[in-house]
């Protein structure tokens, strides 16, 4: 809530999570597609993320196959994005005169999205609390107007601020309420079930078939110039690939080929999306306000 209020005050549209499973908030079309083209776009939203391979059956206090990211996209990059982020930390009660904030080199790249950018992981007392990226390319296309992407891991941030060492012990509601619930009460069962599914039981033949269906559906949509529905299929295909990967059925050589297939889909979507942008469907040029 505080994050929403803070970023809304910085002029961001506050969005809701996208309703498809994805590995990172970057996949949300409000980041991937909107970072392309000339239009200004400032958005903030929470995005649940699924990373099948990171599941630990709920046994590791720091690793989850499903968690939440707070994602901010600022386009064009503001004059002092580092200062804005530090203000955001102050808002959350992290005083930079008491803590040790550091911007440590961490360039970001997503081969599936055909994307890269330069930036840092932001450390607070040795803990990475934010991924900070200046996007340079998405869908294989150079960003006309470079934007800033900020990704905050919500569980980590909450653990840090509340001084909790096990994610499952995080209070999820008011600990003084009649029925206090922890993160574990809410999610532990899901971590166990999904870890078992992701690693042991997912039907790989069906997943492979679905991957190919998504690929076909994507190109069908693109033939009709429908960038957003086509892009949905990229998100789906990428998640299917992550599941197949977690099941360990993709060899190193095949891996590169799968990634290349998703990248080609994303690229095609980005091109169609940009075509629409240029045709004036989002007529707010950067810097026009």
């Amino acid at each position, binding site marked *: 809530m505080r994050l929403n209020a803070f970023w809304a005050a910085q002029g961001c549209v506050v969005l809701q999570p996208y309703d498809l499973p994805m590995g990172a908030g970057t996949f949300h079309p409000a980041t991937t597609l909107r970072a392309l083209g000339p239009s200004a776009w400032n958005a903030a939203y929470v995005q649940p993320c699924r990373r099948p391979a990171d599941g630990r059956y709920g046994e590791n206090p*720091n690793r989850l196959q499903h968690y939440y990211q707070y994602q901010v996209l600022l386009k*064009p990059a503001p004059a002092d994005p580092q200062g804005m982020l530090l203000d955001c930390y102050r808002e959350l009660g992290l005083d*930079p*005169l008491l*803590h040790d*904030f*550091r*911007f440590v080199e961490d360039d970001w790249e997503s081969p599936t999205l055909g994307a890269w950018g330069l930036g840092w992981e932001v450390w607070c007392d040795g803990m990475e609390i934010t991924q900070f990226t*200046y996007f340079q390319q998405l869908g294989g296309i150079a960003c006309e107007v470079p934007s800033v992407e900020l990704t905050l891991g919500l569980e980590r941030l909450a653990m840090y601020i509340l001084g909790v*060492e096990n994610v499952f012990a995080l209070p999820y509601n008011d600990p003084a309420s009649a029925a206090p619930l922890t993160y574990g009460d809410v999610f532990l069962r899901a971590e166990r079930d999904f870890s078992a599914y992701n690693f042991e039981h997912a039907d790989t033949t069906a997943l492979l078939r679905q991957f190919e269906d998504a690929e076909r559906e994507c190109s069908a949509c693109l033939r009709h110039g429908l960038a957003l529905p086509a892009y949905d299929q990229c998100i789906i295909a990428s998640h299917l690939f992550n599941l197949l990967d977690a099941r360990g059925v993709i060899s190193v050589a095949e891996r590169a080929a799968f990634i290349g297939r998703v990248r080609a889909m994303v690229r095609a979507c980005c091109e169609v999306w940009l075509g629409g942008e240029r045709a004036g469907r989002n007529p707010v040029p950067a810097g026009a306000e």
Partner: protein
Amino acid sequence: MPELLLELLSEEIPARMQARAAEDLARLVSDALSSLSPADVRTFHGPRRLTLAATVAAATPEQRLIERGPRRDAPAAALEGFLRKHGASRDAVREDGGYLVLDRVLPAIPAREVIARELPRLLRQFPWPKSMRWSGTSSFVWIRPLRRILCLLDGEVVPFALAEAGDDGHGLCSRNETEGHRFLAPGPFAVGGFADYRAELAARHVVLDPVEREALIRSDAARLAEAEGLSVVEDPALVAEIAGLTEWPVALLGRIDDAFMDLPPEVLRVSMRVNQRFLSLRRRDGSPAPRFIVVANIAAADGGRAIVAGNERVLRARLADARFFWDQDRKRPLETLLPKLAEMTFHARLGSQRDRVDRLVRLAGEIASLVGAERGKAERAALLCKADLVSGMVGEFPELQGIMGRYYALEAGEDAEVANAIRDHYAPRGADDVTPAEPVAIALALADRIDQLDRFFAIGEKPTGSGDPFALRRAALGLVRIVRDNRVRIDLDRFLSAEVLDFVAERLRVQLRAEGKRHDIVAAVLGRGADGDLLRVLAAAEALEAFLASEDGANLRTAHARAVNILRIEERKDGRAYDDAPDPALYASEEERTLAAALDAVEPALSRQLAEEAFAEAMASLAALRAPLDAVFERVTVNAPEAALRANRLRLLGRVRRAMARVADFSMLEG
């Protein structure tokens, strides 16, 4: 001389790129301002700024030029053209040697003009290894967004802007302002000159000089360690990196939970170093201490309590992760990981790691007896040596490969020599690393490198002048070092093709050259034919070197060169080789008979000595050829008019050539 001060303030520059950038800045500014003869150029680098200070001339020197015009008697039109070109009037022209000439003075250009002209161009072309755009309105790129430019000449701003046609240059132009520490002294302040700049930065919690920051980190860390009766584990690369991450380094002491102290020391150290950039501490007896040093970038209001608490918490999470891997990995004996190696590709065309392990088992088994290792142990070590690659810990920290394998092997009750070999077969990892010393480890280390070289050459993945993606040069050099350090008698030609052997021999030559030895002697020894026994090659080379230093050796070499030269010319002329045996009936002189007799004695002696590897004796045998060969050259005409005599004498020289070639290819000697 005026003082130039330039500071480029940006968002955080990656630590590993700072030193190089400072060097580039010094070089580029020196070049661009060469007309101002810059002197005393100093650069400083840190997370947010690159700074250069220098003295420069107040102006470029005035230049006097004489422009030669048309001849005195040329048509008027030519003179008019000349005057127009230089914008001069008729009165300015004088006569010199039949030509009309114009004296021109290129006026001195003030330093500020030169600097203002050169710097924008220099900054636009700055060679960052990676650079980025951060606005749609400028194509000016930098490593991270550039926020301020400070440029002063004797305290006065040298005005320039980065904007150019159609590009706002991010609105950046030079000013007299910079900023101090991001949190302890936010906001800009004005600067007078370098001394003022440095002092004002220090007052604003920025230590400008990276060398000073490193020294501070070292002394603070040592002091904190000392107070606990501990010492800091030396790690210059890490200290340099920390100096690149901090403007105001403040070392703080943290505690490691005792619960983690039973983790292997290498795991503790790698986890702290790689993930957290902590310095490790040790007790007087060398054992790891349950303390660490974290270097913050701030003198915090609470003396660093919150920072230490935060870092300790992060470390607990990290070590809990490491503990998880350590516990999980130890539940499964190394051997049970082998099937997973089959799923791990070594190289698309060379199969899986499992395939590689099978090759290593065969090779290590064959090599074992040559290095005094038990065959069974060498094969066992080979079978297990890559298993830790699929363990959780090595997945997390690849730099622990081998080290974890040893722990897990010991845990599973493997033999100590086998376990050590799993760790040590990666050695030497670099030029400063020692080579393995235990027989089983030696066998495995050799097998690993032989396999790597043999397989990659076989699929045509050979190193090129610029690229060696599979580190084959390092593998070959490692092979040479292991053989030499342990005096291993092994015929590499049993395992490697002639091409790979050549490649290994080339590494040997490079190594000898680096040691200041005569590498051409090794080339000459190898010239007698490929030899996979590097120690034999080296022994022969030593004997040859001693021989060449003797009078007999030097003279024989000259005579040999003469013989070979004659043969080359005559063989080319006749279109045939004189390698067949001479006919004793055709010897026409005492000298020929003497030389033939000497060869009769030398040849069997050489055979015996070479077989026994008695290289010094072989050289002595060759020495016996010197006098008779000299005598032949002195008193016998090789190219006799009688065709039969000539051919026979050439055959006799051919025999000398063959005998000597058994010891070395003397023609490859230099100098």
